[in-house]
């Protein structure tokens, strides 16, 4: 269905429609099937599953994950990697909380802007090291993962609680009591970024760089600049995620966001973003996000013991990605 391998003939209109999001091949079809299967299973075992309240909680719970995966999708399509997102978010979060605590005269709106700036700045550091010195992104961000987290602990002894109702409402309010604001943010972010990828030079050049950096240089693309920009964008979304996270938790702590990187990685790779770059899109990331969120939620409703959930989550990820690998086997089979 989503196999857009159109060697002959014209594209059907619906293929074109999907094609906006999926110019490169992704496991969208298997993901959708997986999701439907999950919904059927969960719904048949739990009467609560298909309630509005439940969807509300699914969507609100993956807000932070969603915003982070929005940023890293950009980085990974460009052939990069960002393991530091959890730390970047944690550091940004605690800095915002500290600013609100110590400089309470600063309007909350300004603090939000500061959060975004801090996030971008941390992303810029990653970007500069990766693009200018040319260090492998995994290594760089493995380093900054530790460094940013370490810096966040400078403020560990402060008990930074957030007393701004506005700040609190960012991650906790619902439109008409049903649709979480966070879902709206995610949708807006994903649609904008999908359009950016599809219809801007920046977006297309990102795919080129991810596909083959040398070639991108030959094609006259300003590779360094775009790479740096992609990390800044990832940092920006870490900043936004930090706002939502501290809002949902009502405090800033240095350890917030630890271990998030692997969760986010799971989402985007499940969504078809490849680790080497050059592939992926927001439709895939979005469906994967819903799947990951729904698994967590469904396992709770099915009353699966907490430790077993970890096993099942990991197992489902392996299963989904295996099905996709088998589907694409012809391409990869050789050795």
């Amino acid at each position, binding site marked *: 269905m989503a196999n*857009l*391998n*159109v*060697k*002959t*003939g014209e*594209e059907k209109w619906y293929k074109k429609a999907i094609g906006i999001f999926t*110019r*490169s*091949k992704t496991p969208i079809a298997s993901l959708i099937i997986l999701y439907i299967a999950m919904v059927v299973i969960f719904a048949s075992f739990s009467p609560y599953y298909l309630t509005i309240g439940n969807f509300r909680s699914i969507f609100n719970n993956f807000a932070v994950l969603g915003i982070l995966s929005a940023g890293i999708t950009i980085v990974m399509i460009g052939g990069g990697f960002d393991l530091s997102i959890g730390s970047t978010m944690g550091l940004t979060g605690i800095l915002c909380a500290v600013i609100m605590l110590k400089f309470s005269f600063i309007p909350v709106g300004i603090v939000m802007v500061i959060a975004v700036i801090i996030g971008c700045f941390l992303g810029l550091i990653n970007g500069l090291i990766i693009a200018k010195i040319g260090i492998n992104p995994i290594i760089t961000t493995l380093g900054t993962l530790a460094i940013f987290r370490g810096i966040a602990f400078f403020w560990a002894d402060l008990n930074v609680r957030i007393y701004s109702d506005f700040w609190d409402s960012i991650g906790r309010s619902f439109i008409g009591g049903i649709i979480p604001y966070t879902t709206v943010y995610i949708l807006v972010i994903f649609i904008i970024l999908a359009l950016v990828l*599809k*219809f*801007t*030079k920046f977006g*297309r*050049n990102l*795919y*080129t760089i991810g*596909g*083959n950096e*040398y*070639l*991108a*240089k*030959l*094609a*006259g*693309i*300003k590779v360094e600049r775009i790479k740096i920009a992609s990390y800044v964008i990832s940092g920006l979304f870490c900043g936004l995620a930090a706002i939502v996270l501290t809002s949902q938790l009502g405090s800033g702590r240095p350890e917030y966001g630890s271990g998030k990187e692997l969760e986010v990685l799971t989402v985007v790779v499940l969504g078809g973003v490849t680790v080497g770059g*050059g*592939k992926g899109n927001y439709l895939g990331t979005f469906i994967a996000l819903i799947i990951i969120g729904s698994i967590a939620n469904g396992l709770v409703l099915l009353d699966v013991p907490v430790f077993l959930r970890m096993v099942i989550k990991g197992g489902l990820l392996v299963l989904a990605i295996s099905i996709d690998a088998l589907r694409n086997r012809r*391409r990869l089979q*050789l050795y």
Partner: protein
Amino acid sequence: MADNNNVILKMENITKTFPGVVALNNVSIDLKKGEVLGILGENGAGKSTLIKVLAGNYIKDSGKITIDGNETEFKNPGEAMESGIRVIYQELNTLENLSVTENIFLGEQETKTPLNIIDWKKMEKESRKILKQLNIDINPNTIMEDLSVSEKQVVEIAKAISKKGKILIMDEPTAALSEEDKDSLFEIIKTLKEAGVSIIYISHRLKEIFEITDRVTVLRDGKKIGTVGTSETDSNQLVTMMVGRDIQEMYPKREVPIGEVIMSVKNLVAEGIEDVSFELRKGEILGIFGLLGSGKTSLVKSLFGANPIKSGKIYVYGKKITIKKPWQARDNKIGLVPVDRKLDGLALMLGVKENITLANIQQLGKGFLIKKAVEREKAQRWIDNLDINTPSMNQEVNSLSGGNQQKVVLARWLESGSNIIILNEPTRGIDVGTKVEIYKLMQNLCEQGAGIIMISSELPEILSIADRILVISKGRITGEFKRGKASEEKLMQTACI
């Protein structure tokens, strides 16, 4: 404008060294408006380096580049492109998981106002137009990985001509092209020329040089030997300039007695090929000819266990064998020199020695460990026998020239004692001098009792070197010719069936 009005580009006294290699030594060329300048030279002569210096890929050590009378120095390819220099590089540079359209407009997408949004419609239309000009039927929405090597090469060409430049550089654009595609390319070159575009054309095929260029510059060992008007020279002179000595015969052919059947293929069906049967004899060079996408590569890959066989039988020395994986082919003394050396043939970051012994690691001494002395001795033997030009056996193959890389791959199979050797476009991108060496080598092997299957899309080569030619079309054998009984026309006719 001090210079002659006509001269658009001047490169003067360009020197470029790589660690241990002087790739360009005081080379000067000039290029006039609307002319096609050929550059000839053996492998490693410095042709690609010269154009890469021009296109901003490499920074020259010294020298001067003047375009339109202004001295310039491009720090990166982007700057060169902005000043109207377009390049088709020797290596394929396509993005496998993007569409043809995207590849053609790589980095230079068409946009529409407001907001500078990418205009997909326009790009698709343009692509269709360009591909049509090139006379090739590819849907611009196809994903690159579904194309064959030659189709990809056409897309490369389309990419270079999609935006009009002042100077168009082509580094062996026809290496992977069939005759027909070459003709369409030359039509386009002529049109561009008329429109005032200057072209630098690099090729190892003398025939093409005579067909399309106005002047030819010959390089040897990083030095410029001279520039001559194409109409005032002949191939003997050019070859002499290139190799520094006379080459008596372009296609030396020694008669080798043809012996018993050593391999026979019956009703082979596999991905890309349908019902193929043939025999290969001892001492024979069996040529395989076919158009782009006809199934040549698929065929030899199936013989080598790299393309799953659906049905059919393969006999070697009368014994039925199963080949599911390359190691089975190797153990049956079949060797394959793949068409894309860098991608499929060599472990570029390893040394010459390691690459020569790659198929025979298990034979490097008894037991678990590698006996280094054995390995050195084996590598040295083939470096000497095949005259592989390398500073040391530990040199990374990455830095060898194309011909020498090809010899390394060949050495690997000779080392493993293969006597059925499959060569897929063995002389692609290889200079005349080395070509002759490779032909001789092939015949030596035949004399020693091997049988060779050679895929080639270079007509003169296959007509002169092969003892027998199979023509393949749409995965089936459509014709078989003995040496001397075939002609270019006949081959093309049968290939189009």
